[in-house]
């Protein structure tokens, strides 16, 4: 685990074509990022999520011995899994990645205020770097699963779910509070839309 003494952060600023760069001064953001503590490399890309962009991250991790990665681009809701994979492939624990959302939360919502947008983008990068410096590698725990299912309620839905699971090879326990399964449907005469018998 990287101790706070040998932190090496890489920052990757994405232009997202004109999506970010059209409003935010990405050059200024990159220059600013280079001044932040423990940042050893800053790269700017047209599309960081594309193969060349990801390649650049992987190369930088190797070349600059990065142990924290910050990507300033779109929302983590879209590409966090992408970049987590990318750093994992380069041998870094995926929890050592942090993103700054400078598209959805900046360039797209402050189109009339490029100066304000650039200031905000810098702050978000500073925030991401600050967070990255405190990140720690994490291991996801794995627990075994008991291969059986409980179905509560024996109406048509519970019956169908139980049959599907059992047909798929799983043990099923179906618990029905009434003396017979069937639910409401068992009390119906005919059912729409087919107008056939319900039982």
């Amino acid at each position: 685990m990287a101790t706070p003494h040998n932190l090496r952060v890489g920052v990757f600023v994405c232009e997202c074509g004109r999506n970010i760069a059209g409003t935010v001064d990405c050059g200024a953001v990159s220059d600013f990022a280079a001044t932040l503590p423990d940042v050893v490399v800053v790269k700017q890309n047209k599309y960081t999520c594309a193969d060349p962009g990801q390649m650049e991250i992987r190369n930088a991790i190797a070349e600059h011995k990065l142990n924290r990665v910050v990507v300033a681009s779109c929302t983590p809701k879209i590409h966090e899994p992408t970049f987590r994979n990318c750093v994992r492939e380069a041998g870094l624990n995926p929890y050592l990645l942090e993103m700054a959302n400078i598209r959805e939360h900046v360039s797209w919502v402050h189109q009339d205020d490029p100066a304000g947008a650039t200031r905000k983008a810098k702050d978000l990068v500073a925030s991401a770097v600050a967070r990255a410096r405190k990140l720690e590698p994490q291991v996801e725990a794995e627990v075994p699963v008991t291969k059986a299912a409980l179905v509560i309620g024996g109406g048509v839905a519970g019956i169908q779910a139980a049959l599907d699971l059992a047909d798929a090879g799983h043990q099923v326990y179906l618990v029905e509070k009434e003396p017979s399964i069937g639910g409401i449907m068992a009390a119906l005469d005919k059912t729409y839309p087919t107008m056939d018998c319900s039982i």
Partner: protein
Amino acid sequence: MMDVGRHPRIQLFTHSEVETVTGFVGNFHVTVRKKARYVDETACNACNECVAVCPVAVPDAYQQGFSSRKAIYMPFPQAVPSSYLIDMDACLGNNPIACGKCADVCEKHCIDYDAKDEIVPLEVGAVIVATGVEVYDPTEYDEYGYTRYENVITSMEFERLICAGGPTAGHFVRPSDEQRPLRVGFIQCVGSRSLSPKGNPYCSNICCMNTVKDTLLLADHYPDVESTVYYMDIRAFGKGFEDLYRRSKEAGVRYLRGLPGHVREDPASRNLVVTVEDTNTGHRLEEEQDLIVLACGVIPRQNGGNVKHLLNLSQTADGFFMESHPKLKPVDAPSRGVFFAGCAEFPKDVKDSVTQAGAAASRAGILLSTGKVTIEAITPVIDTEFCTQCGICAKVCPYGAIRPPDARTGRYPEVIEAACSGCGTCAAECPMDVIAMRHFSDAQILGQIDALLEDHPEEKVLAFACNWCSYPGADLAGTNRSQYPAHARLVRTMCSGRVDEDFILHALMRGAAMVLVSGCHFADCHYINAVTWTQKRIEKLWNRLDRLGIRPERVQMEWISAAQGTKFASVMAELDRLRRTVTPEEIEAAKTILAAEFEKKAERLRKQRARMKSQREKEEVDVA
């Protein structure tokens, strides 16, 4: 139904209820109470001799009370399991030996009056909740006269009266005189789509098509019957539905747009007079019917509470179980490893129930087939050295994922990782600050706050946004290009429940003009009810700020869903307006006050820790 009874991999427990559930995804420990049937279902061959001799008759619930059954009975002819049981409440006296007729005639000796409930333990990896719905009881709609007028019946009662297996062997007659009605009126939306305190606000989904079906059955069996449907909208939205609706109209069924205000009985004929406004013409009509069928809606299972607590489920305002995500995870419960099938989630017809059941089985099957679950590394770690075993963490956990401490036995709270979803409420509420959230630690969040407020904090709005609603709400504002002032700085947490009061105060101490805590609406909270702790915390904080002489309005709380991009933008605009009202003097004063508050807290914790330490050392000496 029969397939379930026969399937080698399905063990059926009828007349049974789940009594306890502990454990977590992949590892649930369940106990089931198998209630005594008093008839050995494995030996019984359904000869029916017992029923013939039983002297007790009670109303038959299956037949909606239109006929009777015995105290020893089979629920209905096609029942699965195909076995009798004794209704002990009806069986003669508390001492069944006083009668004992059924046991006397049973040649296979299946009957055991002393049978006891059995408790069966089960181990399962996944749970499917398919507890369905109940039919709405229309008695409170007094204007329709259900229970006062015999010839006003419910749609469920209609089912039994038209059914060949019903109490009248399918001869459709009305209750008062067992005569065949020639004029039948159906009243729609009874108990549904109601804006008054009576009934429920939602559409029950099935009653329109059920009525269309009923009119077709009548037209089919009795071409001379005149049916009238009183409705406000006919919702025939599904595949093949419009076609059935058209067929019903072609069969001569009259659809009158207007819900009756009133139904009254003519005491002589026992016919019913309906007062209704035809909203298409504006005419007020009085119409006579021989029989009225109330198209009753459906309501959540009233015993749903039991299942709800057993599995830590939440309900929407309607009372139906809430799914993990209404669009993207419609059959997953918020608690991992639990899935919904059928009407338990919301009223739906058989086809949709079956479809959803397939989806739930598939979702559960993925879990079972994978054979293992990974737990996202965002769970809490409790440093027990300075834990006072107060138990607040266990109390606030929406998932019961913290085993409560016990000061008497010396047990410390323990995180059950697989049950935890990482909301962080425990860490925010721990009075000793000894709970660290992995990947959302205090140091990480405070580091973000400091970085965001390093430069010109007085111009900034620091906003905490939860991962599931407010943060994606802000994303949506972006996708929609909703513009707002560039002063907001967001910090993402999994849940607003993670936002420690200290984070907010820290931001104010760093000079932020405004702080926003935003999370999911109560009904959407992705951590069951964690957001209620957010609210309590912020309300307490407002009082505290007030006492300290800091304007409480500088801390705002908003619920913004993932679909509310526009709301996010307007909240930001409003916060920017408020930001401009905050004076530099105010900010400076708050900074000084809060620095002193933090110093006081640090001192308190220091002292308490020292006390705990010396106490512990003393105990160790005593033991030695």
